[in-house]
């Protein structure tokens, strides 16, 4: 169904869920970003949850691709939440001085979906108030 090495993008109601279970090499990372953005364009999904609990290591390139995907999704009107980051990965990113600015995070998939709903509700509130 999906080409070998690519990452499936699932849809749960109006939220897209991506679970990265393979090592993200540069080419896969780029393809992943392209796939996700295409799916957002096709579905107009309100939220995007990226599960990275399967990632044991993240280098600065992959971290940037993930963070940027969130920023791009935001421009397209989709709220992104990153879930399941491993302690070692968080420690490595912080030690590298890499800042995942603006990236929203949650402990697990369940809470990620909750947070997406919260974020969308907050956004509607702000927009209604004309902020």
């Amino acid at each position, binding site marked *: 169904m999906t080409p070998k090495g690519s990452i499936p993008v699932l849809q749960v109601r109006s939220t897209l869920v991506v679970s990265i279970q393979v090592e993200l090499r540069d080419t896969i990372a780029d393809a992943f970003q392209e796939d996700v953005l295409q799916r957002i364009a096709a579905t107009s999904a309100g939220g995007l949850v990226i599960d990275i609990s399967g990632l044991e290591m993240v280098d600065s390139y992959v971290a940037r691709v993930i963070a940027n995907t969130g920023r791009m999704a935001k421009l397209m009107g989709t709220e992104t939440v990153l879930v399941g980051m491993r*302690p070692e990965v*968080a420690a490595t990113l*912080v030690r590298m001085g890499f800042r995942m600015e603006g990236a929203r995070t949650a*402990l*697990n998939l369940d809470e990620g979906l909750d947070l997406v709903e919260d974020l969308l509700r907050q956004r509607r509130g702000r927009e209604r108030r004309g902020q």
Partner: protein
Amino acid sequence: MKQQAMVKVRLDEAELQSRRAFFEIRDEDLRRLASLRAFADKYTHEVVEDLYILILGHADSAKLFVDHALVDRVKRAQREYFLGLFSGRCDFAYAEDRLRIGFAHERAGIPPKWYLGAYSRYMRSIFDRLLAELKDVNETRLAYQSAEKLVAFDMALAMDAYIAAQLQTVARHRAAIQELSTPVIRIYERVLLLPLVGTIDTQRAEQLMEAVLGKVVEEQAKVIIIDIAGVAIVDTKVAEHLLKTTEAVRLLGAQTILSGISPTIAKTVVHLGVDTSSMHTRSQLSEGLELAFDLVGREVTPSQGKRGSSGNARVGNAQR
């Protein structure tokens, strides 16, 4: 146990050969000692008794040997040791046996000074008896030198055993201190507390971050309160470490509350120009707790009858 002794001192066949070469223990030495077996049998009792005249005659060393049963036991071990010198062996099993003696001394709390001092008396005692037995000065000299080489070899092993045991104790203490220095406690469902006391250097900050991150994921904690009231000095480095930990905790999907911020710490942080906008901060741990409960959807209300007393509070479901 035996195996352990060898591992602690890292003794293998190559090491054994290297030691034997350095102490110049040759086969002829071992042969010479083996030929004195009759001498050894004859004098073993005397030599050991003589040793205990010294040990028990000295007020301080005698304190270690107040128990008669113990004295009998060590004397027996000493006699075996003496006979071992004239066994004509200096192999792996021999070294293992010597190491074990070293560890036994350490465990019994016999300091190296008594151990070495007793050896001095021991060697003089052996010399006198060799001379009495062999009569010939040159032969005595050769026999004594062979025994002396082997004894020096034994002493080196015993010293290594002492040092290995001490290092092990130090390592055990260090592990205990490390564990105590990052006590991440679960104080409520999904709320963790890390009370920090003492000095935070880079090494400790690293451990701290690892402990915090691991525990957050393990407990699926939403909030961790880091109380720094007991931290001696908060400087740029410490502030940076705390910021990094906060950021890493955020990446996991949890939040950090920094409590115990005294006026001094507040002044330092502002003067240092550290950006703490990503942190929740509170002056008192109690306020940190209230915020933590708020963040996990609980609220703290004063208990009835003690209205206004912050010492008696109840945690209930927050009405959202």
